[in-house]
C-alpha cells in the first residue's frame, strides 16, 4: 500500500509523456490510431493522479507517520476535515493538488470533445499533456509527497521509521475556509490551462474560424469563477483570521492571484469582439497566453519566495524549475505566433469612438494597465536589484494610487459599455439609455454630499455604483416589460424568462451587479476607524456609536492551546447590545500564537475587535477595536458574482430552436444575425448581447 501512491504518480508521468509524444507523432504522421491512443493516455493521467491523491489522503486518514509529508502536516488529534485539507498544507501536496486539478480539467476537456473537432483536439491534447508533464516531473522527481522517513538502524542499514505522532497542521490553516480556499484558487489557476491549450492548439493547427473561441469562452468562465471565489475566500480568511482589520494588503502572494484574474477578465470581454466582429484576434490569443503564464508566475511567486514578501522569508530551489518552464512557454508562444501570424488577421476596423467596440478596447487597455501596474509593483524588488543593485519595494500607496482610478473607470465602463451599440451609437440612443441612470447616480451623489460624505473616490464610486445598478435594472425592466406585454405574464416571471433566453447577457449583468456591490464594500475603506487602548477591568473604549466595556480577562486552557481572553460588553446609546470575546491563543503543539478576532458583522458595518497582546511598557492587555463599514457587501457581492457566472454558463432556453445555426457562423460582418430569439429584443439592435 505504501508504494501504490508513488507508483501511480510515476505511471501518470509516463502516461503524460506518452500522450505528448504520441500526440505529436500522430499529428505529424496523420495516423488516427496514434492520435487516439495519445488521447486515451491523456485521460489515463487523470485516473492515475487521482489514485495518487487518494493514496496520500489515505495516509493522512490512517495517520501513517512514516510518510514525511503526513508527519509534517498532521497529527492524530486533528479533526478529519483538517486531515483532508492537510493534503495541501505544504509544498509537495500543493503541487500534487495542482497536478490533480489540472488533470481533472484535461480529462473533461478531452472527454467532452472526444468525438468533435478532429482537426483541433490532437493539438489541444498535446499542449495539455506537455503542461502535465512539467508538473508531474516536479511531483515525481523534485518535490515528491511520498517521501518516507527513514533512519539507519544500529547495523547501519536504512530502515523506514515512523513518528508516534505528527507535527500537526499550522494553526493558521485550522480554519474552515482553509479547507475550500486553496482548491478554489487552484481550480482557477489550473483552469486557465484549458483555454491556453485550445488557443495554442488552434494557432498551431491553424484551425479555421473562431470556433476555438466559442469552446474556450465557457472554460475561461469556469476558471474565472473559481479564481474569483478563491481570491475572495482568501481575503475573507485574511480578514477573519489574521487580525489586522483588513482583507487586502497588496502582498506579492495576493497580487499573484489577482494577475491572471485581471487578464482573464479582459479576455472574457475582448472575446466578444472576436466573436461578433472578427477583431482583436492577435490580442485575444496573447491574452490567453498571458493569463496562463501569469498563472505559472503566480505559482512561482507563491512557491519560491523569489519576491520575499515581508512575511515570507521562504526560499526554495523549486523556483528555478518554474522560471525555466515559464521561459519555455514564452518561447513556444512567440514562435507559434510568429509562424502563424497571418492566420490572425483582423476582419474589421474600429468604426467609431462611441461604440461597443471602443468600450471593450478601453476596458481591455485599462485592465491591462492594472495588470501591468500590479505586476510591476510586485516584481519591483527583483527588478530594482537587477538594474540598480538595490532592493526596493513599493507599498500599498503605489498600488492604490494607480488601481483606484482604474477601478473607477472600469466601473464607469461597466455601466456604459453594454448599452452602446456595435459599430456606432447615435446621440439619441445615448440620451435614451443614459439619461435616467445618470441622473439617479448624480442624485445619490448629491444626497451623500449633503450628509457629509467627503471622500472623493468613495463619492465617485457611489455615483457610478448607483448609475451602473440603474442601467442594469433598466435593461432587465425593458426586456421583461416587452415579454410581459406579449405573453400576458407578470413582470417577475418575465424577468426569469428574459434571463433564461439569453443567459450570457443577463448572467453578465448579474456579474456586473455583484461587482458593483464589491466596489461599494471597498468604498467603505476611507471611513474605517480604529482605536487601540490599554484596558483594565471596568474601563471603556469608545468607537463610533459603540462604547466597549471591559468586564473581565481570563485564561482558558485545554490540551490544544492556552488562551488569554477578554470579555467585553458592547453598548450602543447606553443600551447593552452584545458580548464579544476576543482571544489570543497559544498553540502548545506548534508553539504558535494566534489571534481569535471577535467580529460583529452587519450590512452597515463590522465591529472587529482584536485582543492585541500586552503593552510592552505596562503589561496591561491591549484591545484594538476597528469599525469597518460595508465590509459585508464585499462577501455578498462575491456570492452574486458567482451566481451570475453560473447563470451565464447555462444554456439559453429555446436557443437550439432558433439560433443555433446562426451562432455557428456568427462572426465577421454578420453582426445583426446573433440577436436573441425574442423579436422584441431583436428590435433593439443597439444592445444585443
Amino acid at each position, binding site marked *: 500500500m505504501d508504494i501504490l501512491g508513488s507508483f501511480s504518480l510515476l505511471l501518470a508521468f509516463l502516461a503524460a509523456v506518452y500522450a505528448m509524444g504520441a500526440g505529436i507523432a500522430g499529428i505529424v504522421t496523420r495516423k488516427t490510431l496514434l492520435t487516439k491512443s495519445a488521447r486515451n493516455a491523456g485521460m489515463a493521467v487523470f485516473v492515475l493522479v487521482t489514485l495518487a491523491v487518494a493514496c496520500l489522503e489515505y495516509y493522512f486518514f490512517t495517520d501513517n507517520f512514516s510518510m*514525511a*509529508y503526513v508527519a509534517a502536516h498532521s497529527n492524530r488529534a486533528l479533526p478529519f476535515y483538517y486531515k483532508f485539507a492537510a493534503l*495541501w*498544507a*505544504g509544498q509537495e501536496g*500543493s503541487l500534487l493538488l495542482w497536478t490533480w486539478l489540472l488533470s481533472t480539467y484535461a480529462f473533461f476537456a478531452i472527454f467532452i470533445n472526444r468525438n468533435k473537432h478532429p482537426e483541433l483536439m490532437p493539438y489541444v491534447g498535446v499542449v495539455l499533456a506537455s503542461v502535465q508533464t512539467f508538473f508531474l516531473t516536479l511531483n515525481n522527481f523534485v*518535490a515528491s509527497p511520498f517521501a518516507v522517513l527513514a533512519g539507519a538502524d544500529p547495523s547501519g542499514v536504512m530502515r523506514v521509521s515512523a513518528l508516534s505522532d505528527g*507535527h500537526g497542521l*499550522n494553526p493558521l*490553516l485550522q480554519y474552515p475556509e482553509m479547507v475550500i*480556499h*486553496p482548491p478554489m484558487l487552484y481550480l482557477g489557476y489550473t483552469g486557465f490551462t484549458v483555454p491556453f491549450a485550445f488557443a495554442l492548439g488552434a494557432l498551431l493547427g491553424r484551425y479555421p474560424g473562431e470556433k476555438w473561441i466559442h469552446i474556450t469562452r465557457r472554460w475561461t468562465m469556469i476558471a474565472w469563477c473559481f479564481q474569483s471565489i478563491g481570491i475572495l475566500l482568501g481575503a475573507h*480568511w*485574511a480578514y477573519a483570521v*489574521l487580525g*489586522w482589520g483588513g482583507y487586502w*494588503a497588496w*502582498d*506579492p*502572494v495576493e497580487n499573484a492571484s489577482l494577475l491572471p484574474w485581471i487578464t482573464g477578465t479582459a479576455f472574457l470581454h475582448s472575446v466578444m469582439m472576436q466573436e461578433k466582429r472578427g477583431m482583436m484576434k492577435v490580442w485575444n490569443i496573447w491574452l490567453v497566453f498571458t493569463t496562463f503564464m501569469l498563472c505559472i508566475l*503566480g505559482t512561482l511567486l*507563491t512557491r519560491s519566495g523569489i519576491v520575499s514578501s*515581508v*512575511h*515570507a*522569508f*521562504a526560499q*526554495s*530551489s523549486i523556483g528555478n524549475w518554474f522560471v525555466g518552464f515559464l521561459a519555455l512557454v514564452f518561447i513556444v508562444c512567440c514562435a507559434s505566433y510568429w509562424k502563424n501570424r497571418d492566420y490572425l488577421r483582423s476582419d474589421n*476596423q*474600429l468604426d*467609431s*469612438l462611441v461604440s461597443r467596440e*471602443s468600450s471593450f*478596447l478601453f476596458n481591455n*487597455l485599462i485592465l491591462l*494597465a492594472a495588470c501591468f*501596474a500590479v505586476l510591476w509593483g510586485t516584481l519591483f524588488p527583483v527588478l530594482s536589484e537587477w538594474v540598480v543593485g*538595490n532592493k526596493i*519595494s*513599493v*507599498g500599498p500607496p*503605489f*498600488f492604490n*494610487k*494607480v488601481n483606484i*482610478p*482604474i477601478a473607477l*473607470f472600469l466601473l464607469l465602463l461597466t455601466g456604459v459599455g453594454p448599452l452602446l451599440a456595435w459599430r456606432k451609437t447615435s446621440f439619441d440612443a445615448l440620451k435614451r439609455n443614459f439619461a435616467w441612470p445618470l441622473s439617479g447616480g448624480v442624485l445619490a451623489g448629491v444626497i451623500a454630499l449633503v450628509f457629509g460624505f467627503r471622500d472623493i473616490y468613495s463619492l465617485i464610486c457611489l455615483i457610478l455604483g448607483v448609475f451602473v445598478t440603474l442601467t442594469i435594472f433598466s435593461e432587465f425592466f425593458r426586456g421583461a416589460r416587452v415579454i410581459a406585454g406579449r405573453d400576458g405574464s407578470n413582470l417577475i416571471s418575465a424577468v426569469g424568462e428574459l434571463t433564461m433566453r439569453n443567459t450570457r447577457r443577463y448572467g453578465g449583468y448579474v456579474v456586473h451587479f455583484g461587482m458593483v456591490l464589491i466596489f461599494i464594500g471597498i468604498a467603505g475603506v476611507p471611513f474605517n476607524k480604529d482605536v*487601540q487602548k490599554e484596558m483594565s477591568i471596568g474601563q471603556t473604549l469608545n468607537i463610533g456609536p459603540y462604547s466597549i466595556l471591559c468586564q473581565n480577562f481570563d485564561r482558558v486552557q485545554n490540551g490544544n492551546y492556552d488562551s488569554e481572553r477578554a470579555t467585553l460588553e458592547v453598548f450602543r446609546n447606553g443600551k447593552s447590545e452584545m458580548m464579544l470575546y476576543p482571544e*489570543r491563543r*497559544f498553540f502548545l503543539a*506548534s508553539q*504558535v*500564537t494566534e*489571534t481569535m478576532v471577535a467580529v460583529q458583522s452587519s450590512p452597515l458595518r463590522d465591529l472587529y475587535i482584536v485582543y*492585541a*497582546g500586552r503593552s*510592552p511598557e505596562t503589561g496591561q492587555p*491591549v484591545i484594538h477595536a476597528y469599525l469597518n463599514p460595508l465590509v459585508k457587501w464585499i462577501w455578498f457581492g462575491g456570492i452574486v458574482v458567482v451566481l451570475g457566472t453560473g447563470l451565464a454558463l447555462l444554456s439559453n432556453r429555446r436557443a437550439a430552436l432558433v439560433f443555433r445555426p446562426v451562432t455557428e457562423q456568427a462572426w465577421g460582418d454578420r453582426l445583426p444575425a446573433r440577436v436573441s430569439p425574442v423579436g422584441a429584443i431583436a428590435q433593439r439592435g443597439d444592445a444585443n448581447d
Partner: protein
Amino acid sequence: MKVRSKFLVGSGIIVITLISLAYLGFTQSKTYYHTITELSTLQGTSLRQRMRVSGNVKIGTIAHVPGSVDFVLTEQGKDLRVSYVGRDPLPDTFKDGAQALVEGKMMPDNRFEAEQVQAKCASKYEAAPNQTSGSPQPGQTSNGVDARPAGS
C-alpha cells in the same frame, strides 16, 4: 480626426495619467532593503530613506523604556541599535534570538527608529529550506495567501 487616432489620443491620456500616478505612489512608498553591514557604508541622502533591515534579536538586549522598546539586531557579527516607537504591541514571536524585520529610518545618532517590527520565532516552522518535511514558513501559508504575523 480619424477614429483610430482619436482612440490613440484617448489611450495616451489614460496611460500618461496612470504613469504619473504610479510615479507619485512609488516615491511615497518606496522602501529600501539593506543589510546591517550595508548600513555602515551608506552616506548622504541614502541614509534618510525609508528602509527595511533584517537580523536576529541579540539575546538579552530587549529593554522596555518609556516611549519605546530598544533592542539590538545582529547579523554576521554586525550590530544595529533599534528603537521601536510604534503603537502596536510587538508580536509574540518577538523574543530573544528571534529573526526580525524592522521598517523605519536611521537616526543621526546611528540608532534605527522602527515603526514596524515583524518577527519570526524559532519554532518548528522555521525549517531550513529544502528540508524534506516542507513545512510552511511562518507568514506564508502554502496556499497562495499571505499570512501576516499577528500584530503587524
